[in-house]
């Protein structure tokens, strides 16, 4: 009996000790991602915004980076691997980039202009030896403007565009630079590169187990001293199921989770976990059909719908983690401007507009709306859409839903509002990444991008808007360009071109041990400033 008790005590002790060993060593940050796999590690990442956030902007750099250091200012472009860039004074399709001197890749090779050419060939030139269909699938569509490129000398690069396009710097912020020397060292095999990638970023990928984890360590020779990571290690763990993420955080297996389920947030805060959130260029909207016969062609109906939604009350559903839309871009964006129309909750005004448009309690408007029960970045699509349905009913708009799976939804989004496959739906509920002029404005409403040839789902085409887009592309001075973008956004809002509902705030839950994290107003993050408390 005594022996048994001793044995039990010893067992208990060893359990306790192993438990202690199992806990994180100081300086290791473990993150539960929402992706179901580690994003592509070879350079141009997959898995959307999360891919660039965790593998792109950590292991790699772009020629032009996003500034990720400020929480209260809108995120802007800053020099990355290029220190300066300018369009030619005469020929507006010719750009010259001065590259950063003395940058090395993780494998020790030197970054130069020839490397950029090699990387662009990797995405654009199917005949090149290093052409990688996987990276190309992710990167090619991001740089539509590029027509040609060449190295002028070691640190000078020239890029030509098909037509004058002042949004080129924004396009280049998508493109990650991988190491040519490393690709050659890995037998020119991208699959081997995936295991041992090499970029110029502040983090080096140390180990990588597909679908399970990736371990990143600091790159001490990173060119920007202020962004050399303070942590010993950054561990990324794919945890696609939101409850599995919550349980992992609360049982101490990870220190940080992306997108906690809103209902678990009070319990997490009650247990001392910290919720971090901030505005970022994200938009949850109903993209309206403007094909002939759509009721949304009437500006009064569009405005009425925008005035019928109590966005503050909707916040309860999301644990308050949302920003009620005041326009298409989040309030506080450098491109918000001063629109006259305020999409607030004003049922009387909504009903007045509907009456003016010829509708009333006995003559209700019927609309059909495409929604999906899930989808990346879609927040809580079903409850939110049902809430909108109830809200619009008060303004005599009866919504009938067409519910489809997310993958099918993407197909229908590509097909456009005029395609028979949408079965006459007059809107589509979609989440937009609106970080730059193209993804934020042009792609949704450009006459040349009408679906299925482009991403203008609603077939909207307007001369005035067309001129504005042209002006954006031909205004090469960034400050002047911002001014044009503000006017564009004012038109977006004043014409009520979308059902503007809400912006996500990228909530993430973390252990109180995580210190020094600043959440920028961007899809990407800077992990370099973070430390772990004891």
């Amino acid at each position, binding site marked *: 009996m005594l022996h048994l008790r001793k044995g039990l005590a010893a067992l208990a002790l060893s359990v306790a000790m192993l438990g202690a060993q199992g806990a994180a060593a100081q300086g290791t940050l473990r993150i539960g991602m929402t992706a179901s796999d580690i994003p*592509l590690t070879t350079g141009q990442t997959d898995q959307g915004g999360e891919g660039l956030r965790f593998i792109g902007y950590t292991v790699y750099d772009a020629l032009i980076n996003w500034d990720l250091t400020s929480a209260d200012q809108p995120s802007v472009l800053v020099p990355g691997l290029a220190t300066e860039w300018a369009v030619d004074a005469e020929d507006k399709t010719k750009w010259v980039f001065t590259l950063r001197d003395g940058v090395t890749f993780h494998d020790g090779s030197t970054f130069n202009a020839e490397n950029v050419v090699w990387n662009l060939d990797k995405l654009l030139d199917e005949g090149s030896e290093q052409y990688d269909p996987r990276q190309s*699938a992710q990167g090619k569509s991001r740089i539509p403007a590029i027509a040609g490129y060449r190295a002028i000398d070691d640190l000078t690069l020239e890029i030509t565009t098909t037509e004058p396009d002042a949004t080129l710097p924004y396009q280049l912020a998508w493109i990650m630079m991988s190491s040519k020397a490393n690709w050659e060292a890995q037998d020119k095999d991208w699959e081997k590169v995936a295991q041992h990638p090499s970029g110029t970023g502040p983090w080096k990928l140390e180990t990588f187990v597909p679908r399970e984890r990736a371990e990143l360590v600091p790159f001490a020779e990173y060119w920007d001293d202020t962004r050399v990571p303070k942590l010993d290690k950054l561990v990324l763990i794919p945890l696609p199921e939101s409850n599995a993420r919550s349980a992992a955080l609360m049982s101490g297996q990870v220190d940080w989770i992306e997108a906690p389920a809103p209902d678990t947030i009070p319990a997490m805060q009650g247990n001392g976990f910290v919720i971090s959130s901030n505005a970022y260029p994200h938009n949850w909207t109903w993209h309206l059909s403007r094909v002939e016969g759509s009721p949304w062609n009437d500006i009064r109906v569009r405005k009425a719908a925008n005035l019928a939604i109590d966005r503050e009350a909707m916040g309860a559903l999301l644990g308050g983690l949302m920003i009620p839309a005041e326009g298409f871009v989040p309030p506080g964006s450098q491109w918000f401007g001063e629109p006259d129309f305020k999409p607030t909750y004003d049922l009387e005004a909504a009903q007045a507009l509907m009456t003016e448009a010829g509708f009333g309690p006995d003559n209700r408007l019927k609309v059909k709306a495409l929604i999906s029960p899930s989808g990346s970045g879609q927040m809580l699509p079903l409850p939110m859409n049902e809430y909108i349905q109830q809200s619009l009913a008060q303004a005599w708009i009866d919504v009938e839903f067409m519910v489809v799976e997310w993958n099918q939804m993407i197909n229908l989004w590509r097909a456009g509002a005029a395609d028979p496959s949408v079965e006459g739906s007059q809107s589509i509920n979609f989440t937009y990444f609106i970080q730059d002029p193209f993804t934020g404005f042009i792609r949704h409403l450009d006459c040349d991008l009408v679906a299925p040839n482009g991403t203008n789902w609603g077939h909207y085409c307007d001369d005035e808007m067309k001129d504005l887009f042209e002006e954006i592309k031909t205004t090469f001075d960034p400050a002047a360009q911002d001014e044009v973008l503000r006017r564009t956004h004012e038109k977006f809002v004043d014409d009520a071109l979308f059902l503007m509902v809400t912006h996500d705030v990228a909530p993430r839950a973390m252990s109180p041990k995580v210190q020094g994290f600043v959440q920028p107003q961007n899809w990407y993050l800077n992990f370099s400033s973070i430390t772990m408390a004891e």
Partner: protein
Amino acid sequence: MLSYFLRRLILVLPVAFGVSVVCFALVQIAPGDPLTAIMPVDATAEQQAAMRAAYGLDKPLPVQYLIWIGNLLQGEMGRSIASGRPVADEVFGAVGNSLLLAAAAAVIAFPIGTFLGFLAGYFRDTILDRLITALSITGVSVPNYWLGIVLVIIFSVNLGWLPSMGAGPGGSQDWQWDWAHMRHLVLPAVTLAVVPIGIVARTVRALAGDILSMDFVTALYAKGLSRGDVLRHVARNAAATALSVMGLQLGYLLGGSILIETVFNWPGSGFLLSNAIFQRDLPLLQGTILILAMFFVGMNLIVDVAQAAIDPRIKRS
């Protein structure tokens, strides 16, 4: 014995062919475009067509099947659409992790189930029997995915005793046989073991009860054999059937762990499968199911042969 084994082996071939056809057909009945999930949402029609050709999805069906089966025979199972990695690599790694989990569940379930079933059968119609029967019926009736969630809340979140997810602190690649790793096995294995405990207990109870009530047991007692000797006879007679039930259960554990693996984020074949389903990664779906089904076929073969070895009567039937 050898001829019986060969006969069974030959019977397996058409089944294996059928399984491959079913797995191939799975992809064909799937609606929608398998490439949707991985193309950037704003890919052009031209880029889409190029990708379709790159994955061989533009060829007629029989050609696709022949290419597929030809590659399969060379051990080449294509590439995952979502990750771009070879399906074979992904599946075999994951099946290894699932086997570990299934084996752990079997180690928990089979001895406990056998013991309980034997007790119940031996003491038939006593309170003990009723208790064990109730317990095993409960085990068979509980939705184990729900039980898993409940166990996580109790033992991981509230008590903090056991981890809620993953296959060890460093992932499945550096698995070691120490407590730091094995504690990750406890909750999923226990959850997974509940159903087979019930099934094995019920089977063994019925077997033991039946055999005990047979004439020859009475005869053995009459011969003056001790209680222990009788028990041994009973056990040997029941072994063949019990073995076959357990063999099948091991196959079910492997194929049926998908829900549990999802709950516990266990990097096994079930987790892979559910990812494949949600990303509509059809080559991966196909490969995972094929490998698991083939494993199950092999398991059945082994069980049949083992059963025949223990109980020679089976060979003749």
